[in-house]
């Protein structure tokens, strides 16, 4: 059982990352900290997906000519989560980039990063168009 600690640890870390991210999104006021929290949630989910593909004493999932099929099937780790998590990381990176760019623009315009000041639209239903 000692070896499965790796997988267990990864899953617990993933859960912690998600919870920390949610707490940051709800309780922290700085917009940048909120963005970091949001990125944490995505990272937690990615870690969970990677942990799903983990196999105790696993080998890479590349089938070579001289391998025995049965031992390969018994040992190879599961490839699908790795393929998926790559896509997911790319999506997360681009989302993060756009969010940070927006934070930069908002900071330049308003001179503050406080979420209560920036994202609190008290002008109820008032939308003027330029």
């Amino acid at each position, binding site marked *: 059982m000692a070896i499965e600690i790796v997988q267990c640890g990864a899953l617990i870390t993933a859960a912690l990352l998600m919870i920390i991210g949610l707490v940051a999104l709800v309780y922290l006021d700085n917009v940048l900290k909120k963005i970091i929290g949001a990125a944490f949630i995505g990272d937690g989910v990615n870690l969970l997906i990677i942990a799903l593909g983990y196999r105790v004493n696993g080998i890479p999932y590349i089938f070579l000519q001289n391998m025995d099929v049965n031992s390969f099937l018994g040992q190879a780790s599961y490839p699908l989560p790795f393929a998926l998590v790559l896509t997911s990381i790319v999506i997360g990176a681009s989302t993060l980039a756009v969010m940070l760019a927006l934070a930069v623009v908002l900071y330049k315009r308003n001179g503050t990063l406080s*979420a209560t000041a920036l994202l*609190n639209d008290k002008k109820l239903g008032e939308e003027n168009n330029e």
Partner: protein
Amino acid sequence: MNMYEKLVQTLKSTFGQDPEKTLVNGSKTSSIVSAELVLMASVLVAALTIRLVSPALMIVAVIGLMLLFMYVTPIMPKLYKEHNDDFNNMMFYAVLTLAIFAIVFYWGVF
């Protein structure tokens, strides 16, 4: 008439921070009142569907809702204030819903 005056007072305190700009006129008042009535009617009708889970619970829920409506009317101004574009507010409700879904689906089914 007294009731109507009282209602208009409540509406003015919610919708007309600046009475010069946002006059609470007749059509606004009537639309808020109709929204209020629709909210009550449809929530009460929707509460009837609880009978599919348990009829006793439905009776309790409907009576509870009626009492609630009696004491908290008018609801629309409160709902309008609560339902604003504040990010913290939205995030709070989003996380609350997430928690409810997680609990209901992990422990509440089967």
